[in-house]
């Protein structure tokens, strides 16, 4: 194994008494948040509501960002924000993941009242939203009976409920403007998402369902959403680097040895899907 470092996996969520700061917690110089100054030497990664929205391995996206930053000598500080805590506004990258209907509704309610995530996005922070989180950043999503529930209005999109659940492997070709290789992931949702004029589709579906109209995900500025689990950043390291680059500026390539296992997994998954 080629990695060293101190930013291990965050503690299991479940400490409502205070935001945990894995990795950074053991450092004597951990000064918490600093005002302003994006692109500071240490990246602040904020995982929004892991207690409600972390249904399928969403932690993996955080761990991949930590690792790929660390391998380039960029320090990270990860903050897990539970649903009964305020969302800090000074993070660099915000992650919001998948969840079942009721937790999704509760999360929407709390995040709207809190305002922190929308404020951070307004300040130019990177937001990476997956599945339920992706629906949440839009203006509307479907509740447990299919009823419309207001979203956070961070991205110009709205979601409803489709006729059937979309479950399975996904392949999708990314908008050429982003310069990323084909996406691989796993979707499990019943959402149908319509994109407004203020966002662009992240990708065109090659296999799977995605948004439901042949596109998958959406992005605008530094806000990017997707239906893909996998987790998405594990299977698509280039997407992780896109987000890191938005927050930290141009990144050097990683040595091939550090990419070996991820590349093999990615090749296997791309080849496993007909049409891939």
């Amino acid at each position, binding site marked *: 194994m080629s990695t060293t470092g101190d930013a291990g996996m965050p503690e299991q969520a479940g400490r409502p008494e205070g935001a945990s700061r894995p990795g950074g917690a053991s450092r004597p110089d951990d000064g918490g948040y600093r005002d302003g100054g994006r692109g500071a030497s240490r990246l602040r990664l904020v995982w929004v509501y892991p207690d409600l929205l972390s249904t*399928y391995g969403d932690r993996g996206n955080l761990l991949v960002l930590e690792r790929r930053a660390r391998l380039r000598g960029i320090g990270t500080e990860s903050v897990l924000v539970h649903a009964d805590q305020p969302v800090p506004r000074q993070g660099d990258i915000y992650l919001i993941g998948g969840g079942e209907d009721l937790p999704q509704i509760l999360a929407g309610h709390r995040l709207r009242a809190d305002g922190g995530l929308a404020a951070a996005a307004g300040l130019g922070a990177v937001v990476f939203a997956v599945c339920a989180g992706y629906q949440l950043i839009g203006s509307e999503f479907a509740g447990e009976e299919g009823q419309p529930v207001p979203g956070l209005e961070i991205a110009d999109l709205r979601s409803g409920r489709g006729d059937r659940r979309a479950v399975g492997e996904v392949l999708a070709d990314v908008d050429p403007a982003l310069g990323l290789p084909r996406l691989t992931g796993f979707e499990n949702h019943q959402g149908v998402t319509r994109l407004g004029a203020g966002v662009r589709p992240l990708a065109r579906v090659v296999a799977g369902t995605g948004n439901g109209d042949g596109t998958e995900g959406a992005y605008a500025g530094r806000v990017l959403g997707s239906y893909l689990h996998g987790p998405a950043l594990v299977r698509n390291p280039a997407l992780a680097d896109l987000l890191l680059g938005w927050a930290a500026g141009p990144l050097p390539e990683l040595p091939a040895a550090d990419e070996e296992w991820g590349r093999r997994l990615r090749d296997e998954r791309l080849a496993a899907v007909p049409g891939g």
Partner: protein
Amino acid sequence: MSKLPLRARLAATIGGVAGQVSRLAGRGDGSVIGGVIALRLEPGLLAMLAAGRQVVLVTGTNGKTTTTRLITAALESVGQVASNAFGANMEAGLTTALGQARDAPFAVLEVDEKYLPSVLTATAARAVALLNLSRDQMDRAAEIWLVARRWRDALADAPDCRVIANADDPLIAWAAAAAKQVTWVAAGQRWREDSWCCPVCGSHLVRSESDWRCGECGFAKPAASWVLDGQVVLDPAGRRHELGLALPGRANRANAVVALAVAETFGIGAELALARLRTVTSVAGRYTTVLRRGRNVRLLLAKNPAGWLEAFDVLKPAPVPVLLAVNAQGPDGRDTSWLWDVDYRLLRGQRVFVAGERRLDLAVRLESDEVAFQLVERVDDAVDEVEAGGDLDVIANYTAFQQIRAAFGRTT
């Protein structure tokens, strides 16, 4: 049970023959195919076979097979018990189990979470044990809140049934609270990532080590009459009993407490029941140690994040190596994302082998947690790396586990 109508008798007989053929052909333990055929001939067969017996149903995400085995052991002190001991837990498997023990006055059946409502109706069960609910194979299973809601509706319609439920799991407590008769058991809950939301009102639950309550609507942990306290169980009279199980781990102590509460429903006292529970040493090949090529290989099953936590709890420490095997076939769930919900860091410093059809997913996962590992094609490749006479622990998910058992010739 000999009062079955001719058509049902025929269905049961043909189903039994099909099961035997399947077994002889080495295609499995035969408990599914026989039941499928029998049910096609007589769709009401499960209800007919259950009629007149005292039936216990066991369901939940983890621990079904083991708890079923433990309850069976306890009830065998008062009579013959029909049981689907090998985990075939949908209607066909249940039908086969009842058909194979036609004269048993008791039946202890593990039931797939989705099938509990229909099986409860068909069997008019005397008792239902609800263990826990957590994320599991979500590409094919319903959301667990939906599962709990269906249980709730079904139990509300079964006033004669006693529910034995784990009060430490909020979703279980919500489902069971709709039943007329409930025995609450404080069996603990290690995995909490799926129960931060109040099942009643959706608000955030306030949790401590052994208690939970909703800060908004007041829904709270029910007072338990059976309590697991480390290695000891407190019975409803407040007496303490040392568990002393042969099965390892905290999860099995929790399963045992549920089994004791079920046994009490049938008038079997804790000491008598415990003596029976202690005789259970392996369950459907799990926890078994197999001698393989001169090494002692112990097989542990873990199918989801909560299950992996429980498996780690019984893992032998370094220098005993461990082999992890993961597949993603239909019964496993085809999405491997859940691997990222498991904290593998405690394997640092231990020798780790990685196998299974999705070993590359595991490899990337372990790399991220800075756990050194070695990829192997087959389990025996890892066995051969262990020193002669040494130990190897194996943790595998469902079909990976079955493949390993098949490779070992079902010697367990």
